[in-house]
């Protein structure tokens, strides 16, 4: 077993039951297998356009969802498949959206970057880097205004962390004590630009201090550390103390999108992370060493997940393309026609 490190801040592991640990394993594995399948379907031409895979970062969303309660909200960027699966959205609907079919969450009109679920309190799926950050603060504003005791998880990457609107949102979130957890998924590369090449203040969570927002750095390859940090952040928000920042150090194994030249980092670097720090392997070892599960149990889970993913892929292939009439629906909530010419 490779040596694992957790940062001092998150060293204290939360109590977690074997069932919970197994559940995290399942959820992380679902995301990974789902994304691998999406990559395959992309290669087959069934998925088009931009497709940003979450492989490597699974512990972030699974750990934070473990800290969330029913009714809490989440909003993220375009690398959103993992967030949707982790909050309980149907893999079939997500995959069918990737293939642009009627059965997709947005009836095929959103695509990889734009999916939503009112039922699961998932507010997108936003394609413009950083735009989801004020939106997340706004969702929290609504909860506070309405007296709901809910928290909004607002995810963004190290790339977005250099956008001005992030700091505009920080300022107002703290000013108005909004219950929002700002989650910086620091996977170390903004597309192909490493954090070292984009800022001289690479400790993103510390920037919150300028606005009075507390925060911390978290080991994002350790789902239990993420969960513990998430619980702390949520408690802060629910106590009415305003926003909290989690900078979660993670790593993306795949390219930024499907067309990534992979020139900005070495194969060795990626390989090393996969071998030494993989979040799923970590939980697998915890399960086996703690005798919470046998190899056979885990194999059975693998098989289940494979079946779910295959079913999603089949659904996504077989679901029909949206009817042409769909072009003209959902432009206005009251469907006022706006035809430019007769």
């Amino acid at each position, binding site marked *: 077993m490779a040596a694992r490190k957790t940062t001092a801040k998150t060293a204290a592991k939360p109590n977690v039951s074997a069932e919970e640990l197994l559940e995290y394993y399942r959820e992380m594995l679902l995301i990974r297998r789902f994304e691998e399948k999406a990559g395959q379907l992309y290669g087959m031409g069934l998925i088009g356009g931009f497709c940003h895979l979450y492989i490597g970062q699974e512990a972030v969303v699974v750990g934070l969802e473990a800290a969330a309660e029913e009714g809490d909200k989440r909003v993220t960027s375009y690398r959103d498949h993992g967030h949707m699966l982790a909050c309980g959205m149907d893999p079939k609907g997500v995959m069918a959206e990737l293939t642009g079919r009627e059965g997709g969450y947005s009836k095929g009109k959103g695509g990889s970057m734009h999916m939503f679920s009112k039922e699961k309190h998932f507010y997108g*799926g936003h394609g413009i880097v950083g*735009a989801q950050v*004020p*939106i997340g603060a706004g969702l929290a504003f609504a*909860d506070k*205004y309405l007296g709901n005791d809910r928290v909004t998880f607002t995810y963004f990457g190290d790339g977005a962390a250099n956008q001005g609107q992030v700091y505009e949102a920080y300022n107002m979130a703290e000013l108005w004590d909004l219950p929002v957890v700002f989650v910086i998924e620091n996977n170390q590369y903004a597309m192909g630009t490493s954090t070292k090449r984009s800022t001289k203040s690479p400790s993103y969570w510390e920037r919150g201090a300028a606005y009075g927002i507390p925060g911390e750095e978290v080991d994002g390859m350790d789902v239990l550390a993420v969960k513990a940090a998430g619980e702390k952040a949520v408690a802060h928000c629910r106590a009415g103390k305003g926003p909290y920042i989690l900078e979660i150090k993670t790593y993306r194994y795949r390219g930024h999108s499907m067309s990534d030249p992979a020139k900005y980092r070495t194969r060795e670097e990626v390989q090393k992370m996969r071998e030494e720090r993989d979040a799923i392997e970590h939980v697998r070892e915890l399960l086996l060493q703690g005798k919470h599960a046998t190899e056979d149990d885990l194999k059975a889970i693998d098989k289940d997940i494979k079946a779910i993913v295959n079913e999603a892929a089949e659904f996504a292939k077989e679901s029909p393309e949206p009817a042409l009439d769909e072009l003209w629906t959902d432009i206005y909530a009251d469907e006022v026609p*706006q035809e430019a010419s007769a």
Partner: protein
Amino acid sequence: MATEILMPALSPTMEEGTLAKWLVKEGDTVSSGDILAEIETDKATMEFEAVDEGVMGKILVEEGTEGVKVNSPIAVLLDEGEDADSATVESSQPQQPAPAEKARSSEDEPAAGMDHPAPATPAQARKLEPDWPEGTEVKQTTVREALRDAMAEEMRRDDTVFLMGEEVAEYQGAYKISQGLLDEFGAKRVIDTPITEHGFAGIGVGAAFGGLRPIVEFMTFNFAMQAMDQIINSAAKTLYMSGGQMGAPMVFRGPNGAAARVGAQHSQDYAAWYSSVPGLKVAMPYSASDAKGLLKTAIRDPNPVIFLENEILYGRSFDVPVMDDFTVPFGKARIWREGGDVTIVSFGIGMTYALEAAEKLAEDGIEAEVVDLRTLRPLDYDTVIASVQKTNRCVTVEEGFPVGAIGNHLSAYIMENAFDYLDAPVINCTGKDVPMPYAANLEKHALVTTDEVIAAVKQVTYR
């Protein structure tokens, strides 16, 4: 030599004000920087300082006088030892240049003997006051008050409606549109933001996703360019991108277009920009009743609405019906004046030129039908086409830039849908294709003028 003290303009758009109080009396010696009087405008009460030194000779306008025109003499300042009655007065009254006579052309006679097809649905003459029942009491109300009343009424009606923006609460609105709202609704619902348009527009969008009905005030729409991504990509497109699951029921409002002498960065009309975006609705009222009725409709609308006001119109008064709940539907133009010779289509402050031109044209025997679109998305194509089928000629009027203007779009639509009815090409009267200059004469020239509208009408009517 005595100097006249003139009524000062205390804001770019001030035309008149109230001389609230004199702080000096006749015979007092004043030096530059002394406060002479308090002047009240519709926006604020401001102190007025002396520029020159001397002795207050005669006070020409009593305190408490309302409607004192900017640049009219309010007092006479004497040199030391000079007598008030015998002093020769140096007037600094600016000379108003006389409008240049427009050259008339009798070229381009219409082709004789052209027949027009009969309209499939005969052009219906609309009632001139279609918005409230006959006999309803009306009250003269400024556009400013009408907008405030609309917000207050909707905030009373729906607890999820709130107003956010720069200076909307304690300052009472940079243009006093939100006057009194903080007192009535409290700081929870009338929220001062930092100067951070992109951020608070995004927070507004998120709040709308989360079940509220935000009214986001931009101090002017020039500043909304900082927030453009949130308005277009987040507010306008989410309903579509989510397959109808969620959208942004909210209003972005504020003054749009040129005010007066505020230069290129503060003087742009964004009507055509926003109107090009599916998912947005766009309202641009001219009158106070439309400002009120359309804003109430906008706040209730389940979509993002861009509500384009105009600083110069804020202080203008119009009849507003005294009704419990007066609303104006979107997508329904108003015909302000009926006529059979030409259709003039406009909206917002463009209506000022359209109506003025129509008055003057009537003196020459040309009867213009003046159509106020009121909303640009949805746009009342039917009323425009019906009117063009009746008059066979059309001139559009707007203050925005000429390339990609609303008038361009209307011209294309009329050409596609009423080509056989046209007796002349449609002419678009627009602002000029230049950034807004500061100099008074250049600014006036950069905007569309009544004379240009008159000339365009004469051209399409071959007079």
